[in-house]
């Protein structure tokens, strides 16, 4: 501290910046929205497993009932992603690509 104590209170000093520069992520576009409503579409509801087997899954079950009541032509497929909520599931993504039109995924908190 002696280096600073020897200075006057209003003297200006120069210090190093503790912060590190961040690298920005390459930007990726959203998939084009090719339909304007969900009539007749197949929607995957994917529970990633956060909060255990009942948290997101239960929300999606309620959502499934909502679709059945409100837009009955929508086909919903409720699935659990494999592994923990951070784990990738390429097989599921391929299945959704082959059979689905859209996806609702969650929940993360």
């Amino acid at each position: 501290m002696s280096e600073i104590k020897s200075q006057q209170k209003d003297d200006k000093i120069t210090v190093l910046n503790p912060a590190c520069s961040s690298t920005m992520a390459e930007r990726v576009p959203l998939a084009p929205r090719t339909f304007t409503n969900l009539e007749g579409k197949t929607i995957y509801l994917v529970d990633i497993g956060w909060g255990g087997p009942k948290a997101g899954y239960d929300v999606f079950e309620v959502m499934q009932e909502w679709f059945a009541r409100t837009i009955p032509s929508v086909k919903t497929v409720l699935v659990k992603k494999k592994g923990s909520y951070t784990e990738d599931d390429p097989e599921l993504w391929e299945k959704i690509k082959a059979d689905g039109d859209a996806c609702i995924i969650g929940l993360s908190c």
Partner: protein
Amino acid sequence: MSRHAKILEQIGIPTAPCTGENVIEYLEGWDRRYNSGIALRYTVFPLPVAGVSRAVHEVYLKGNDPVTGKPIMQEIIDALTKPTTSDEQITGLPEESSEPRLLAPDTEENLQELFKAKDWTDYLPVVLPTEVRVAAMLKGTSHKPEEVVKTMTWPGGGRQLTVEKAAVCAVMAGARPQYLPVILALATMAPFGNSTTSMANMLIVNGPIRKEIGMNSGTGAMSPYNEPNAVIGRAFTLLSKTAGNLHAGLTNFSSLGNNLQYNNCCFAENEEGLPEGWNPLSVQFGYTKEDSVITVALGWTYISCVGEVETEYPPQMLISDYMKSLSAVGSAALLCADPLVAGMLHDHEGFTSKEMLSQWLSKNTKVPVQTFWGNGLTTSFYSNLGIQGLEPYATWKKLPPDSLIEPFTNPKAINAVVVGGQTNTIWFITDFRIGKGVLIDAWR
């Protein structure tokens, strides 16, 4: 979750990710800028989602997104059907903005305020990192200032933590140059725990450097009675906050926080107090006794035995009893035992090695299965594995709620460290998980 949603969008599937309101600012700002690069259309749910009844979930779905105020189901439909905007179609790399090496000259008082305003401190005064002080600190290592110690990928941004940046934090924390190799080794493990579950770290030093720099492994080793213990632990906090770019509510989600993060429970193992046959922690993980090593443990809590060991009830029994209060995530437990306790376990109870004690605790600590599944973190990690048939979780899923299980399945994740000044037969049992430590000598 943004990783999963991004993959789906990239394969052409319109996706509506649903999240809690606690992380939305991070997801739409930081995560998009530095991790995903994609303008995902989030719908936000009120909290809590886990641990509440279906009736609550029904109310949520009938209600509004607490951030946008829009009806949740309509917002989800819009996310899947509304045409993408120009902002959502942007590709390529955005312009970089780099941090200058030096800050604009200012008075000491203003700089102290600036450091607090930028969230670079623990809100205790820091030693300002002038060029003279940082240059003096760098004499504590042979490594070049520009050498990258670690690229910090969490919480995004790929920030390069250099030897000089670590020296800056060492100065700020009040360290001496001879502590720098320890702090550089520690920097390879930054940042500290950051989870809604409010985790913390424990820093344990082994080997000759303990004595070289005067660390405390005896009386009050886990309290503020020793400079290197105090400032090395503090340096980890400052490294984590600055290089980690952690800000409460934005990139730090720790709901209650954890007071251990002021110092990260930094101490040295009392190797001189180890009973015969009990190896130092670093040696257990493959180093020699001549190596200086820092081990960074990750956990949440510790429980003290409070009183001295009683003749009628051997210490391993009470340790096992108190372990029942731990989550058993990763099968992890860490015993911090005074040398007197270690001696009793060795001499009177026949535990001739730490490993033997670990085996005993693994086999003899039993909890009702409903206690194990009653913890949201264990459930999040292991429930799906059980559903997919992985043992023992598949069997545990089927057991009656009061069936006793042995949740600490992996004795290797149950560790012991000897610390303390032999003023009483005291021990702490903790849920800290340990991996192989970092060689400090590589940073001299």
